[in-house]
């Protein structure tokens, strides 16, 4: 009988005790693995966030994010100034304007109702062009309470909202952009067709949000009009939100020409070369552009999200180490108990010539058999519990920092033209809080294997220490009773 076979046999000497030990180990190992899975998932998410938008700054016209609108619009000249700031790797300008269905606009005009926000009459807040153009498209979303209130406030009836207004559909957000990204600086997710090619040249092509295209029965190659000019759907994109998909993108020059504002920009998306330089570059941009002319924002919600995820990562790592330590302590105590119980047996093995390493190996293998069984059950527990534990950790760490409800947005996001730059009023990264809920804590085999390897490592130490300490004793000392 080999050492391994003897160890397996020893692990099952007392079946009731073995079952109890495995149950306790499974809970500790399961908790450790769940924490490791949560830690890995959050770490991956933080890395992803930092890699995607962590180095992006957004420049809006000064005061553009207030209800009362801002000062002067941004210009292409300011974009060149921003591009010259050290550590800036790219500056992408955007021009946003509203589109209103031509038939609906005509009906509202004949009924004497305000044509909507701006409508050629009211100014859009912040850097948003006050221009509202007509289109053959129909908005994919009807205005809700906030949408109606905001549009009424921006219309000719003033901001009091006391006059009862008929329900409106929301305007469609059109954005001209100088690169293939959305207005938060994230790469556009094109689900069908292709991009617009050269975003710095005028083009009759456009990218439509999936819900907008669906509402209007359009697909790649279909055509629609903006101010009676025909545009072709080059591709469809998915922004991940319903409101975000009630939008379209054209190239920056196309948007500037349509809005008849050739040198104006609604916002600038500035990419910094590294996360470490973001703060200093932000300050340099504020100096270069002037705080009375431009607001430079970093996406506070993203910072909050990353910070919250960092807390979750730290907590989950500490909990992993604690659970691992607990598993190790359990193994140590169990092995101390087993070794004490079998002191006589160790003495016999030594008396008949067993080397210390063989005795140590026998007890280590016995512990590993118990740990293997505990790990199997623990891995099953972790695979079921890791998602819930990660969610609970994230919720507990973000309730005051950001909304964690899937799809939750700050109220301004409900309006057709929120904020000065046509972005959710939660800031340029208003959707970042949602990223917290998109952490997927799946128990990948690699992470589970790494966790189990760590548990085995701890178990080896836990088993080896008492066995070797006992094995070092002279055999006669553990055979007391046999001899005086």
């Amino acid at each position: 009988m080999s050492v391994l076979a003897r160890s397996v046999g020893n692990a099952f000497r007392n079946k009731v005790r073995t079952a109890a030990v495995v149950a306790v180990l499974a809970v500790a190992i399961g908790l450790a693995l769940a924490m490791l899975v949560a830690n890995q998932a959050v770490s991956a998410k933080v890395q992803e966030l930092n890699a995607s938008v962590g180095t992006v700054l957004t420049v809006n016209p000064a005061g553009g994010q207030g209800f009362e609108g801002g000062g002067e619009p941004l210009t292409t000249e300011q974009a060149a100034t921003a591009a010259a700031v050290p550590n800036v790797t790219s500056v992408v300008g955007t021009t946003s304007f509203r589109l209103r269905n031509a038939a609906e606009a005509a009906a509202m005009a004949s009924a004497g109702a305000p044509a909507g926000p701006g409508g050629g009459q009211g100014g859009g807040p912040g850097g948003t062009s006050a221009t509202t153009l007509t289109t053959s498209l129909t908005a994919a979303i009807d205005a809700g309470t906030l949408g109606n209130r905001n549009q009424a406030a921006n219309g000719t009836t003033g901001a009091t909202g006391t006059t009862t207004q008929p329900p409106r559909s929301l305007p469609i957000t059109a954005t001209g952009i100088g690169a293939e990204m959305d207005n938060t600086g994230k790469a556009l997710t094109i689900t069908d067709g292709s991009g617009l090619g050269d975003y710095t040249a005028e083009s009759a092509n456009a990218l439509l949000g999936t819900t907008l295209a669906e509402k209007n029965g359009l697909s790649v190659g279909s055509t629609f009009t903006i101010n009676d000019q025909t545009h072709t759907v080059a591709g469809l994109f998915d922004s991940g939100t319903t409101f975000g998909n009630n939008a379209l993108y054209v190239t920056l020059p196309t948007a500037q020409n349509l809005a008849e504002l050739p040198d104006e920009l609604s916002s600038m998306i500035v990419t910094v070369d590294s996360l470490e330089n973001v703060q200093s570059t932000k300050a340099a941009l504020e100096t270069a552009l002037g705080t009375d002319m431009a607001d430079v924002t970093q996406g506070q919600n993203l910072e909050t999200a990353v910070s919250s995820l960092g807390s979750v990562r730290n907590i989950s790592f500490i909990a992993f180490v604690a659970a691992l330590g607990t598993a190790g302590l359990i193994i140590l105590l169990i092995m101390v108990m087993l070794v004490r119980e079998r002191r006589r047996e160790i003495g016999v093995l030594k008396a008949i010539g067993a080397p210390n390493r063989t005795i140590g190996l026998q007890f280590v293998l016995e512990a590993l058999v118990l740990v293997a069984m505990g790990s199997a059950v623990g891995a099953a527990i972790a695979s079921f519990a890791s998602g819930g534990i990660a969610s609970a950790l994230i919720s507990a760490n973000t309730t005051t920092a950001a909304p964690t409800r899937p799809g939750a947005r700050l109220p301004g996001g409900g309006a057709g033209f929120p904020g000065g730059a046509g972005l959710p009023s939660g800031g340029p990264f208003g959707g970042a809080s949602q990223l917290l809920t998109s952490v997927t804590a799946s128990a990948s085999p690699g992470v589970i294997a790494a966790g189990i390897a760590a548990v085995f490592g701890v178990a080896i130490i836990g088993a080896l220490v008492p066995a070797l300490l006992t094995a070092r004793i002279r055999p006669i000392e553990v055979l007391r009773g046999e001899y005086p």
Partner: protein
Amino acid sequence: MIEVKNLVRTFNSGDRTIKPVKNVSFELEQGTLASIVGKSGSGKSTLLSLLGALDKPTSGDVVVNGVSLASMPDGKLTEYRRRDIGFVFQQFNLIPNLSAVDNVMLPMEFAGMRKAGRLQRAKDLLEQVQLDPDKQVRRINRLSGGEQQRVAIARALANEPQLILADEPTGNLDEQTGDHIIELLSSLSREHNTTILVVTHDRALANKADRRFRLQQGKLTEEAARTRSAVATPA
């Protein structure tokens, strides 16, 4: 050849100092069958544990084939026990959850013998001690005291040691099996030139030894020796 030189072992028990082995000296030629008799508590088992390197003497030395046990490090002592010593304990000291054959294979496993070879040798040894084949695969805790004693003897013979130390080897056996074990030990001594030192209360067994010692209050004295031919022919 085993030389025991001025061996002393003392234990402290509270304020008292117990001295079960007092300045014991003797020599045994290789292949000798020797017996030690004495009352309970006279120090017989303590002396056996010192000779078997299970314990270290307070003073004095045991020299085996010119090598001093007192100067051996622990690793070498383990090797000495594995290679040169076969122990038959008074309380058997078998591993309870292993079968008889597995118990006998243990010392061979520690000595690095291949599995097939040690299995066959274990079966042969168990047959020599007259343990039925069906009992050879039984767990130790399902064997009687006498059967366990025979397994313990088979285990002591496993690595063909130079010295077998047996503490009451026939104490749990019936007369017939006891006689067989005595004969087995005698033949080992004769045919394999194995030195055998037996601690016993059994006067019949003691009388069959080449040399007979008596231990009284820790002091060893030798009684009259028998001739080899007398040992070779059981009564």
